[in-house]
């Protein structure tokens, strides 16, 4: 673990490198790792996406870079301030703390939070620090339920007694913040959609099937992924993903399993390569006799995404996935989890899922 003063030193170094350039009369610039498809690779050892070593320079005197340069320096200075005062703040608070109008202009240093968020990621990547180490938190939206007790600061929380809403996953789930105490589950079910998660919670699926159910309400935030990774690594629980049978759902699965390009610098701490894809699959339509009138026609974007995903290294070598993608393209339709309700409201929890797990009918 990096100590607080190490973090401060790393941030200060960014400042001193730039002041050195200024003292030498050079045009100020700093390097950041390139966070794009061209600079990430699949690491066979960790089985996650990793950031390559390509760097790009951001120049203050390049009119296209100047604003971001200025903003990055401001973000860095505010982060230093936070750490020095031992405070933690959300990335939204950081945005508001920094936001002001540039003297003599009508221009704000940040017009929108979408300007400051990626710079925080840049800073994390270039300093090799985690967001938590920068004393920053992102807002979370994930919920979790199951036979599990956690200690969050002084509070002990029983996740089997959280009612219909479940427990909201906090942004920092590192072991020193969240201690997992009693765990009585055989697997983790990572559900794409909030509505489907609620069906599973209402039916107390986790009780009957001894599992933990979690959703990130769409694309999950870091905290949900980190918590699932901990359950997998520390408690050896298998992780199953339940997604829509469409390119977006499959992409979310891919992020849970291998990570995303924009966070490629810290995927080792976020991704869960053991995750299995339980469903929904296009091949389930025949297998479970799902009426074809609940399918949705693919759009051009979908077809483009399928083509791209077929080429992802972890999908490319998997015959099951290649077949699934080909079938989706051939049938030219996609399928939502809710479509299973056509077969009865509890079909998904009482027939579909148990059968899937029992027959180990999933993709890797």
């Amino acid at each position, binding site marked *: 673990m990096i100590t607080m003063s190490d973090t401060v030193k790393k941030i200060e170094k960014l400042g001193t490198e730039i002041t050195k350039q200024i003292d030498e009369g050079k045009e100020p610039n700093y390097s950041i790792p390139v966070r794009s498809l061209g600079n990430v690779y699949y690491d066979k050892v960790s089985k996650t996406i990793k950031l390559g070593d390509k760097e790009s320079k951001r120049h203050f005197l390049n009119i296209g870079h100047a604003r971001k340069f200025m903003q990055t320096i401001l973000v860095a200075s505010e982060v*230093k301030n936070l750490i020095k005062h031992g405070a933690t703040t959300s990335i939204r608070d950081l945005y508001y703390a920094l936001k002001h109008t540039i003297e003599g202009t009508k221009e704000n240093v940040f017009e929108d939070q979408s300007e400051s968020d990626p710079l925080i990621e840049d800073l994390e990547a270039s300093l090799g620090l985690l967001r938590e180490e920068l004393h920053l938190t992102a807002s979370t939206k994930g919920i979790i339920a199951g036979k599990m007790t956690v200690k969050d600061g002084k509070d002990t929380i029983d996740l089997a007694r959280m009612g219909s809403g479940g427990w909201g996953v906090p942004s920092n789930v590192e072991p020193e913040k969240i201690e997992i105490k009693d765990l009585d589950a055989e697997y983790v079910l990572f559900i794409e959609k909030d509505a489907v998660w609620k069906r599973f919670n209402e039916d107390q699926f986790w009780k009957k099937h001894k599992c933990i159910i979690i959703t990130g309400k769409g694309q999950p935030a870091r905290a949900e992924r980190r918590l699932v990774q901990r359950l997998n690594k520390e408690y050896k629980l298998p992780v199953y993903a339940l997604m829509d049978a469409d390119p977006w759902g499959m992409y979310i699965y891919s992020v849970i399993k291998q990570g995303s390009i924009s966070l490629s610098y810290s995927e080792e701490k976020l991704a869960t390569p053991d995750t299995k894809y339980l469903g929904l699959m296009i091949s389930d339509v025949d297998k479970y006799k799902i009426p074809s009138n609940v399918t949705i026609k693919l759009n051009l974007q979908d077809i483009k995404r399928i083509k791209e995903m077929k080429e992802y290294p972890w999908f490319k070598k998997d015959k099951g996935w290649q077949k699934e993608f080909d079938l989706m393209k051939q049938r030219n339709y996609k399928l939502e989890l809710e479509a299973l309700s056509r077969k009865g409201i509890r079909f998904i929890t009482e027939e579909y899922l148990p059968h899937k797990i029992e027959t180990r009918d999933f993709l890797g």
Partner: protein
Amino acid sequence: MSEDKFSASFKESSVAEFFKRNRQMLGLYGKLRSLTTVIAEYVCNSLDACEEAGILPEIIVKIIPLGEEHYEVHVIDNGPGIPKDKVGKALGKLLAGTKFHRLIQTRGQQGIGASGCILLSQVTTGKPSKIISGTGGKPLYMELEIDTAKNEPKIKLQKELDYDYRGIAVKSEFKEVNYQNSSQNALEYLKRTAIANPHATIKYTDPFNNTYIFERSSGYIPKTPKEIKPHIKCITVDELKTLAKDHSKKTIAGLFKQEFDRVGDKVIKDINSLLDFDISKVTMSKANWEMFEKVVKAIDKTKTFAPRLDTLIPIEEKYLEESLRKIIKPEFLSVLSRKPTVYHGGYPIQIEVAIAYGGDAGQTLANNEKKLELMRFANRAPLLFDAGACGITKAVNSIEWRRYGLKDIENLPLSILVNLSSVHIPYTSAGKQAIAEEEEIVEEIRKALMTAARSLGLHLSKKRHLETKMKKRGIFLNYAKEVAEGLHLLTDRNKKELIDKLEDIITKKLQIEEMNEQEESEDISEGEIPEDAEEKKSKGKKDKITDYFEADGDHDE
């Protein structure tokens, strides 16, 4: 052909009556337009007279309000004056001017101008015009009317004045006319006259007692215009028929050789080879309409010498540039003279254009905003009316200004000037305010304007570039303050010191950039703007500014 004989061929008694009833043919209609036309006619006569006599013109114009729609106009020049025995006839007899039916480049074209104004004064006020004419020495004063039944001058009072004066001074009263702030008033007319006649000094006092002085910007005396014989390619059947009355005994060939420019035996032979009769044998009186038709067709197919081009008197690029700089003070100016050429096979023409941007260029609207202004000239005389019907307007409208980086041209502070010089301006009507849409003329105007438009496009793109550069510096300097603040928090360094150092770095960087650009600039800028040849002639694609110009027609009707 003598003008006396020609005018005699009209029934004299009907001439004055006819024009009295058909004022619009003279442009003497509409309350604003009439007053502007009066000034225009008097001033044109003065300028033409000075030019023929080789005098640098100094013209004083005054409009004095006498009552509602009632004004007195004074025009005083320093020209050669009119000999005492001819003053009455020159000014008091319609169609009796010295210029009628001559092929000579003058501003006015027919001898109806000044006398038409005197007639207008007479029919609206019942008063004579007061004329002073001096040719050196003691001048003659007279009060002049026109006998509209006989088309003869009627001199009411005549006396010699007791001082020396050379020139013509006219004082006429008018009713049923009006003066207003307008792009079609006398001020605008005189301003444009000064622009196109840089050798003239014009002093003008408007009805509100404001005085404007347009000093001459060049001391040159323009060439004296030469009279030329008409070119045979311009002849029409109707004109041949008319000429037959005065030249009945001449053969057709004889008439051609004597009355037309550059017709020799070779041309006659070539014409004859296309005919079933011999024009060297047939006299004018013996030839009928059909024969004349055949002759005209044969001339069309015959190769003739091009007309002489040295008869034209353009403003000339350098003088036009001087006058525009002085009067409009533009930020950018492009002046261009095309080489003389011919239209209709026989009439020499020359086109001059200018594009002025910024400064006092463009028409100023009531809210002080500027919009595009088109200044049309024929033989250096401004054309203020009938813009929509004019070939110059159509030529301007047919240009794809956007191709030259000129977007939204209607709302630019831009003055476009076009001057057509010719011994025979093809006016669309006797009001002499619109030029016919002759293909060769329109094409010449287009070519000249496209070249000028390209230079303006380049200027504006350079200007935008400069503005961007200034903006860039501003952005860097503003951000530098923020960067210094951030660095101060990160490193505890002094903020002021960092700002100063950053400013030096910014300045150095932009200087280097500029040096690099200067080396490359020529190639880049040339590439941005299309060449003449690329401009499509398609009329469908033109910028939609037609409406604007057509709306700029006569306001006061």
